[in-house]
Structures are given as structure tokens and as C-alpha cells.
């Protein structure tokens, strides 16, 4: 019994010490503890199988034969898989890499990507963040045997400090890349200077993504926590859109085309929302360029001049934009828009949440964005979900959406169902 007494005494003494420590914590005094354990029921963790159903973010792309490719990560492993039946079933995944240090940037706006190229090869990109630092590095890997094997991933650049890469491929096979780059921010920090946000950098590859050249940071002070979007202009030059930090910490949007020599951005501010905020919206814009060369952009703001999800177009390559038009139902927190332009029309979809259910409404425009069809709910879920992405195959439009409960779905627009 002596041993048990000793044990009980020590137990009581320890709890007393712990409570005393808690009571002396700054901001914590007696009474009900702030460390009260959570009583809510939490859902089970997502599955951990190497399949798209278990990924938090999924990036889809059709190759020119109509095969659907997806890049996704589960845990610290990056996979690629393909589907011959438009997402109903997938091939056994090919592992690109399993990280030993750090994580794959695959949360919200950030995600690995797969780009089917004109010569039937595949390019995969992903960003890693080491365990003890917040510096991202973009890696790429290539497959020339229909996704069976991929090259050992290589850093896309010789420097670190990148996030949110985005790509477009021209009809001649040139791959343009745009990303947020911390080079100038790191230089400023080393000199003890303040630097807001990231640079917006660009480069291109003429060897199928093996090497990228012409790296140039063409604009500084982009919001560093929101994705860049890219689309191919009618003239074969890439157009990019991102959230820019304007004078006074105003985080509104900018869209611009990269000049043919890659040395200049030509575009302008999308709207004057006047969102003056020192924060991370974690929500970058969506961009599409239609067959007439009109730029279409959708974005989220909580500015002084407008709040919510908005859409505008530019018929003069970014010199001017139409008056922003509100998207979605404000009562249902519309967010994370995706835009798609095909020969058949223009499409916009986004996420809404009513407190219990997440839905993906979609609208079509046949007049270049001047008017839109009534929203149609294309899919819904009552658990966690990825951002929606619209993809096209020969003019047919699909919603690519991963949801915790239903798994990965590729939903054709013409077979829309709730």
C-alpha cells in the first residue's frame, strides 16, 4: 500500500502544480479554464489510400487524346493517375516523390499540377516547404512514357522562395510559367528593409519543361498568399492575374499579358475595391481568355467599395475592365470561383455554403460575359471539399471536384445533377 500512497501523492501534487501553472499564465486567471478540452465530435481523418478520393486538392487536365490526368498528394507523397472513362475509374497511381523533409504545398489555393504537352509527354510541378522554414521551392518532373515513369524531380529554378506557380502552353509547345517569388523580399530583409508581399516572376521553357529560362521578376508586391491564374491569349502570349498590394496595403487585383520577349507586363488594375488590409485572403483570382481575346476574371474582396465574389471582363487586354458584377448569393458565402472559356461559351462556377451544405453553382454566358444563365447547382456535399475547377474536353465542360464524403468527381455540365 505504501507504493500506491506514494503514487497517489505524486499524482495529486502534479495536478496541483499543473493547475497552479495554468492559473499564473498570462491572460489566464482562476475560474473556468480556457484549456477546456474540446467536446465537439470531430469527423474521422480523411482516407490515406494513394487515390484521388483521399486527396485534399486535385488538379485535373485532359490530354489531346481525351485522357484525364490528375495530380494530387496524399500525405507526403505526390501521385499522378489517369482516367479513360472521365473520372469514373483511375489507373494505378504513379508515385512522383515521397518527401523525407517538409511538406507538399497542397492546401486551398496551392496544389501540385499536371500539364499534358503537345508531344504527348507530361510535366508535373509541385512546391515543397521544408519542415523548419517557410520557403517554397518549385519542382518539376517529366514523363515521356505516358505517365508510367517520371524523371527525378528537379528544382525549376536555382533559387528558393517560390509559391503558386501557374502554366500555359502555346500551340507551338512553349510553356510559360508565372509564380510568386520571394527573391526581392529576401534581399530587402537582408538589408533590413521592409518589403510587402512577393514579386511576380515569369519564365518559359522550349524543351518541354526540362529547363526554364528568362526568369524575370516583373512586378513587386503581389499578395503572397493567393494563387496566380494564367490563361493563353489569342495571340499566343500568356495572360496572368493576381492579387496585388497597392499603395496603402490595398489588396486588389491586377491582370497583365507577358510581352513576346518576356521582359514586360502589359495590363492594368482590374477594379478599385479598396480592400486595405494587412492580411492573407488565401483566395486568388480566376482567369480565362475567350476565342475573341476577351479577358475574364473573377475574384473575392472585402473592400470598402464592394464585398463578395465578383466578375469583370476586359475587351482591350487589361487597359479597362467592365464594372464588377456580383457573383452568387452573399448569404451563402460565395467563394473560389473558376472560369472557363471554350468555343461554345463562357462558364463560371464557384463554391457556396449555407451552414450545412456546400454547393457548386454554375452559369453560362453566350455573349462574352455580358449576361449569364440562371445559376444551376452542379454538385453538393455536406463534408469537406476542394475548390472547384472547370475543365474542357473538345468543347464539353466538366466540373472537377474532390469531396471528403463522395470522393473525386468529374461532373459533365450536360448531365448536371444535385
Amino acid at each position, binding site marked *: 500500500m505504501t*507504493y*500506491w500512497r*506514494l*503514487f497517489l501523492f*505524486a*499524482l495529486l501534487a*502534479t*495536478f496541483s*502544480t*499543473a493547475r497552479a*501553472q495554468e492559473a499564473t*499564465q*498570462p*491572460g*489566464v486567471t482562476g*475560474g*473556468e*479554464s*480556457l*484549456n*477546456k*478540452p*474540446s*467536446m*465537439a*465530435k*470531430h*469527423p474521422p481523418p480523411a482516407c490515406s489510400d494513394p487515390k484521388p478520393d483521399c486527396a*485534399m486538392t486535385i488538379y485535373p487536365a485532359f490530354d489531346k487524346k481525351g485522357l484525364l490526368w490528375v495530380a494530387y498528394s496524399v*500525405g*507526403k507523397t505526390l501521385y499522378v493517375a489517369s482516367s479513360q472513362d472521365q473520372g469514373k475509374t483511375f489507373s494505378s497511381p504513379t508515385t512522383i516523390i515521397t518527401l523525407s523533409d517538409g*511538406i507538399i504545398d497542397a*492546401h*486551398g489555393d496551392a496544389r501540385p499540377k499536371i500539364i499534358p504537352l503537345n508531344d504527348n509527354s507530361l510535366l508535373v510541378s509541385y512546391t515543397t*516547404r521544408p*519542415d*523548419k522554414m*517557410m520557403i517554397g521551392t518549385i519542382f518539376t518532373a517529366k514523363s515521356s512514357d505516358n505517365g508510367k515513369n517520371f524523371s527525378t524531380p528537379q528544382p525549376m529554378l536555382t533559387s528558393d522562395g517560390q509559391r503558386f506557380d501557374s502554366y500555359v502552353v502555346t500551340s507551338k509547345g512553349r510553356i510559360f510559367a508565372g509564380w510568386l517569388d520571394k527573391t526581392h523580399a529576401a534581399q530587402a530583409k537582408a538589408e533590413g528593409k521592409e518589403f510587402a508581399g512577393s514579386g511576380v516572376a515569369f519564365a518559359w521553357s522550349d524543351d518541354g519543361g526540362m529547363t526554364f529560362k528568362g526568369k524575370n521578376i516583373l512586378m513587386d508586391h503581389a499578395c*503572397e*498568399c493567393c494563387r496566380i491564374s494564367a490563361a493563353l491569349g489569342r495571340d499566343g502570349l500568356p495572360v496572368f492575374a493576381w492579387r496585388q498590394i497597392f499603395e496603402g496595403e490595398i489588396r486588389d487585383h491586377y491582370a497583365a499579358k507577358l510581352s513576346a520577349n518576356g521582359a514586360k507586363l502589359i495590363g492594368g488594375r482590374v477594379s478599385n475595391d479598396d480592400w486595405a*488590409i*494587412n*492580411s*492573407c*485572403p*488565401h*483566395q486568388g483570382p480566376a482567369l480565362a481568355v475567350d476565342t475573341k481575346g476577351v479577358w475574364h476574371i473573377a475574384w*473575392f474582396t*472585402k473592400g470598402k467599395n464592394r*464585398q463578395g465574389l465578383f466578375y469583370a471582363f476586359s475587351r482591350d487586354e487589361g487597359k479597362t475592365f467592365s464594372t464588377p458584377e456580383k457573383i452568387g448569393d452573399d*448569404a451563402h*458565402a460565395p*467563394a473560389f470561383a473558376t472560369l472557363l472559356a471554350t468555343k461554345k461559351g463562357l462558364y463560371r462556377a464557384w*463554391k457556396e*455554403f449555407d*451552414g450545412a451544405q*456546400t454547393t457548386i453553382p454554375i452559369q453560362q454566358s453566350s455573349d462574352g460575359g455580358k449576361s449569364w444563365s440562371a445559376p444551376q447547382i452542379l454538385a453538393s456535399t455536406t463534408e*469537406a*471539399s476542394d475548390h472547384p475547377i472547370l475543365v474542357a474536353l473538345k468543347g464539353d465542360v466538366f466540373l472537377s471536384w474532390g469531396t*471528403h464524403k463522395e470522393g473525386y468527381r468529374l461532373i459533365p455540365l450536360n448531365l448536371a445533377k444535385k
Partner: protein
Amino acid sequence: MPRSPSLIYTFSLTLISLILMCGTGRSLEFKPYGRGDFDQIAHLREQRPRIIHYWSVTCPACIAELGQWAKFINERRDIDIIFINTDDDEDRERAALRLEKNGLSQATHYGFSDSFVEKLYYEVDKSWRGELPFTVLISANGPRVSVTGALDDPHFVAWLNQVNDVKK
């Protein structure tokens, strides 16, 4: 069956050591935060002004002001401050390192343990889409306001002035 004194002794000492390690060393711990938890946390110790602060390692503005939060905690012991890290589990270690580096190990921390983030945001504020830093300011036995932005945000400053006025 007779108990073996040596076994009990070993068992007791092991347990004591473990408990003492937890009790006195107190490494940074994130309580799980999921659906339904905001309401519970918001109603803890309602007689005091409270701040519920959401942050992430992917938010440079959040990280930049962690040091200011540590200073604020020391200066304002009249206000309860609860930190909620919105990252996934795989970023939690990184979050802990940031907090420790900024002297916030001893504060109260929760971490998102529910990937249905839209629901978590909605429960806090129907207009919140996940932008950070995001802070809920709750007056003693009173209304609450939510603020997107850093500690120097005018809404935060105004709320603090209001708390100060009540104290007077």
C-alpha cells in the same frame, strides 16, 4: 493473485515521471478544434473580455505579429486570449516552432482538426472565407465583433479602447 511490490514501484515511478514531465515541462499543446467548438470557446469565462485569434503559418502577416501578441498578453492580463491555428496537422509542428520562437508557448492554443473549414469559418462569422489573421473580439458579457487584419487594425484598436473605458 499477490501483487509484486517491485512491479508496482516501477509502474508508479514511471507514471510519476511521465506526469511530472507533462506537468512541469509543458510542451506546446494544441487542443483539437472542430465543428461546434467556436460556440463553446466563445462562451468560456464570459465575465471577462476575450480574444479568439485565428492564424496560420501560411500567413506572413500572422507570423509577423506573433511577437506583438506575446507582448500584448503580458500587458493585458485582464483579457483572455485564445489562439487557434488553422493549419493542417502536417503544419502543426511548424506552427509550434513559430509560437515558441515568439514566446507564446504558455498561451492557450487550439488547432484545426476538422477539414470542413467552410463550416468552421461559418460558425465564427458567416462572411468569413478563411482570410487571416482573423480575430474575434468579445466584450465581457457583451457583443462580439470580428476583425480581418493585424493587431493595428482600427477595429481592434477601437474595441480595446472600449474595454479600457469599461475598466475605468
